[in-house]
Structures are given as structure tokens and as C-alpha cells.
């Protein structure tokens, strides 16, 4: 580094005049500036304004928004009055817990299974990568059509074997499971692809040595494969947990949080309160609380990661 610094300093002092020289001297600043401006205007400012708004309430008057300071009124509402928030929090925890466990297990074992086959992995990758990059709203539509009471594939199969059809998306007990199934379908490929890449970079010789020493399949998995894969697995675990926490698009399309509050999650609740009910101050408070929960999750995962 010192060499390049010395050389570039010399270059600038000998030839650094005019526009080129200025661009050269200030390179490190203007290269970072656009990103910095975007981050300040579009992430720092919104966070600050959310905090400020969460102590206010809004009224519309002649196309303008009037803000009134209400102190902790929004917080009181959040803690003691808003039963939908409690349902949304509970549903989010159930949803995140369920999808993360199922996706990790399915993705991991599928990758383990498939890492043994000599051919066809490329084709499988091509197919499995599809759900990740298709618009979530299209995925919502696909599954809406498959869950459809009259014409969906699931009820057609049920009827074909003589069972009665099911209200997949509008019965309170089943809607959450249906939504979880869609998310599992959507994101198992992500866990699978990364775990497969992890398996392929594992040291085969360690594996062979253990096998020669008489380790059976289960021992091999528990004592060697999982410990070696742990760094990869813990990153996938963190990414899936935090991204499942954001879920919005598919659920909005599948159930809009219903029936009742059966599939209402935090993101949907924020959207409904802020935009549909036009309670901007209160919606801001829920947003601030949600951001704090994300920070806590990041903190926990980082501490785990350091061990």
C-alpha cells in the first residue's frame, strides 16, 4: 500500500493539475459519495423520521398532513389496545420458526442426498434456482390457483380419491399451514443450492479417513460433516431467519392476512396501519419496533457466530 500511495502522490504532484488532477485527488471521496448520499437520504433519514413520527398522530386537511404531538399515546395503544399487533407478532414467530426449521432440514438433507450423484447436478441447479428469482407475486398467483377451492389441483386430487375438498386459504386453521407450504417451496432451493456448494467444497480425504477408521453413516454425519459445514449452515440459518421475518408479497397475495388475523404478519400489519388505515404515527411506531427486533436478531446471530 505504501508503494502505491507514494507513487500516486508523486503522480499527482507532478501532473495533478486541471480537471484530471482534481478528479484524481478526490477519487476516494467522489467514488463513495453517491452511495453515501443514497444511504443518508433513503435509509438514515427514514429511520429518524420514523422515530419522530411515532410520537405524533396525523390528520389530513385539504390535501396536507397535519401532525400533532401525542407523546406516548401510540406506545400505549401498541402495548394495551392493539390485539392485531399481538396476533401479528405471534404469527410472525410461528411462521419464521416453522419455515426456517423445515427449510433448513429439507435443504440440507436434499443437498446431502444429491451431492452423491455423479451426473445431473447442473440441470438440477438450473431448475431449483427458478423459484428464487421469479416474482413473489407470480408465486402467490401460482399457489392461489393451485389452492383454489373449485378448480385447484389439491382439491381435484382430493375429490378424485373420494375426499371432500378443503378451503386451503380461508379456513382459520389451515391458512397458516398453506402459507408456510408456499414459503417452503419458495426457499428450500436457496438452502439446497448453498448447502450443495458447501458439500462440494468439503475435504473428501477427511471423509475417507473417517470411513477407513470405521465411522458409520450417521457418525460420519454427526461428527464430521455437520461440524465442517457449520460455518455455512449458520450463515444460511441467519439469512433465512431474517429474510423470513420480512415476508410480505406472497402472504398479501394468498390471504391478505386473513381469514381474520390467521396469517397476519408484522409487515402486513405495518402496511395496513400506515397506508390503509392512514395511521401514520402509529404505523411508524410499529415500524420502529420491528426494526429493533431485527437489530436484536442480528446481534444474537453475531454473538452465536463468534463462538
Amino acid at each position, binding site marked *: *500500500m505504501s508503494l502505491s500511495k507514494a*507513487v500516486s502522490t508523486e*503522480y499527482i504532484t507532478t501532473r495533478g493539475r486541471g480537471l484530471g488532477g482534481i478528479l484524481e485527488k478526490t477519487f*476516494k471521496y467522489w*467514488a*463513495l459519495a453517491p*452511495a453515501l448520499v*443514497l*444511504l443518508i437520504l*433513503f*435509509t438514515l433519514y*427514514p429511520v429518524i*423520521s*420514523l422515530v419522530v413520527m411515532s410520537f405524533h398522530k396525523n390528520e389530513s386537511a385539504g390535501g396536507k398532513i397535519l401532525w400533532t404531538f401525542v407523546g406516548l399515546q401510540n406506545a400505549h395503544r401498541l402495548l394495551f389496545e392493539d390485539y392485531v399487533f399481538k396476533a401479528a407478532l405471534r404469527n410472525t414467530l410461528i411462521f419464521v420458526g416453522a419455515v426456517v426449521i423445515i427449510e433448513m432440514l429439507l435443504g440440507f438433507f436434499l443437498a446431502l*442426498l*444429491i*451431492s*452423491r*450423484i*455423479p451426473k*445431473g447436478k447442473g440441470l438440477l*441447479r*438450473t*431448475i*431449483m*434456482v*427458478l*423459484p428464487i*428469482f421469479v*416474482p413473489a*407475486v*407470480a408465486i*402467490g*398467483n*401460482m*399457489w*392461489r390457483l393451485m389452492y383454489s377451492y373449485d378448480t385447484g*389441483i389439491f382439491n381435484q386430487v382430493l375429490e378424485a380419491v373420494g375426499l371432500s375438498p378443503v378451503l386451503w386459504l380461508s379456513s382459520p386453521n389451515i391458512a397458516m399451514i398453506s402459507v408456510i407450504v408456499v414459503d417452503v*417451496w419458495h426457499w428450500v432451493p*436457496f438452502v439446497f443450492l*448453498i448447502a450443495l*456448494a458447501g*458439500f462440494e467444497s468439503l475435504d*473428501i480425504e477427511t*471423509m475417507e479417513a473417517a*470411513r477407513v477408521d470405521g465411522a458409520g453413516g450417521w457418525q460420519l454425519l454427526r461428527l464430521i460433516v455437520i461440524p465442517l459445514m457449520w460455518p455455512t449452515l449458520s450463515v*444460511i440459518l441467519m439469512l433465512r431467519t431474517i429474510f423470513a421475518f420480512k415476508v410480505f408479497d406472497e402472504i*398479501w*397475495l394468498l390471504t*391478505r392476512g386473513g381469514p381474520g388475523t390467521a396469517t397476519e404478519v408484522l*409487515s402486513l400489519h*405495518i*402496511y395496513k396501519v400506515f*397506508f390503509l388505515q392512514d395511521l401514520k404515527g402509529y404505523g*411508524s411506531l410499529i*415500524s*420502529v419496533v420491528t*426494526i429493533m427486533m*431485527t437489530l436484536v*436478531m442480528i446481534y444474537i446471530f453475531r454473538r452465536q457466530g463468534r463462538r
Partner: protein
Amino acid sequence: MGEFSGRGRLFGYLGAILACLITLLPFLWILMISVKRPIDISSGTLKFIPTLKNYDRVLFSKGSDLPLNITNSAIVAVGVMVGVLVVATFAAYSLRRLDWPTWVTAVLLAWILIFHMVPPITMVGPWYLAFRRVGLYDNLFGLILAHITLNLPLGVLLMVSFIQEIPKELEEAALIDGCGQVGAFLRVTLPLVAPGLAAVGILSFVFSWNEFAAALNLTARATMTVPVAITKHALSEFTRHGEMAASSVIATIPAVILMFIGQRYIVKGMTLGALK
């Protein structure tokens, strides 16, 4: 990994086939619905004469906004791709190679990482209010800026890890040969991180094309993107299933094409992001 015993291989292939079938089933189902007549959809028959009527209707009927939505989505996605490439690459280079104090790099990367993990809907509210004030609401440029910001974390983090892999000595050689720092970046480092640029470009195009929460609240009829339009259409009472399926199929086409073209880069970028 290890030896392939006959049984392991058999289960491997069975798993692979099953995984393919389950992954493809929803795609095949919606594709089938999209070429059925309403009567074939409600009877649920598998024997039917395919028709392109649904596609014709969503693309070319008078009341359809879908062509406009596609244009909007394309403009936004291309703008976002270019924007993210430029902003993220320069920022990543500056942070990694241009002598910032350690704390500056650490704070910025941490902030970016946190923003990457916060639910976007929490940011959309303040964006909406600010955009209304400054005239960026219902404006494609506003949506482009919002999407660039949403994609910036992935872009910066990926570019940082790609740039780290380029040996510094190459740039130093260019500096000795009389290149300035800017020249060394443009002529030496940039060509070497081309695979990273491909990954970031394709990923940000696809994410912008797919993005829903911000587009839903920052656009109105004239600027509506495809996902917003599809949702509005799908949730209205009078929607025909065939048309809903056709418009969803159309919405997935660009992403699928890009995936096939750029698969190597994307899978590499995605796994790199997770494995590092």
C-alpha cells in the same frame, strides 16, 4: 462426497427427480391454466385444446394496461441495474482500496448490512411521505432511486468481496507505469471483476423487476409496474383465472431468461454472498 454406493446413488437420483417435479409443478400448473378456456379451467380436465386467448386479452385488449406496466418495469429495472452497478462498484472500490480509516469502512458496511436485513416495508412509509413532498411519487425516477437503495447492500457487499480477490500488486504495477488511481481502477481492476459485475447487474435487474412492496406504494396508474398490476388484477372480484395465469407467466419470463443466460454468475454471486 466420498464413495458412491449403489444405494446412495439410487436415493440420490430419486431425490433429484422428486425435487425437480415438486419445483416444476406450480410452473406447469399455471402454464396449463394460462392456455385453457374458462370452461376447461372449471371442469378441471386435462384434455383440452390450448388457446392463446388469455395472452391476447391481457396484452392487446383495449382496457389492458399490461403493455404499459411492462414498459414501466423494464425502464425501472434497467435504470436500477445501471445505477446499482455504478454506485455499488465505485463505493466498494473506494471503501476497500482507497485508504479510508478502518472505522469508516466498518461503520458503513455494518450500516449497509443492517439495512439489508430490515423489512423494506418499514422504509416505504417515510419514502412515500417524502416522495409526495418533493414530487417523486408516481414518478419512475423516484422508484428507480428507491430500488437502487434497496439493492445497494447486495451490490456493495458482493463487489467488496470480488474486489478483495484482485491482487493489489496489479494496480501498483499500473500506477508505476504512469496510470493514475482512477485509471488503475478503470483499466485494471474493473475488467478483472467482470464476473462480479455480471452477477450484480443481473441480480439487481431481477430484484427490481420482481419488487412489490415499494412499487405498490410509490406508483399510481401511469407508473405502475408489473407485480403491482398483477396483484391488483388478481385481487379484484371479477378476475378470470386464465388471464391471471397468463399475466403471471409473462411476468416471470424476463427473470427466467436472465437466469439461463447468467446462471453461472448468479449462483456464484449468491453462494459467495452466503459463504463469506
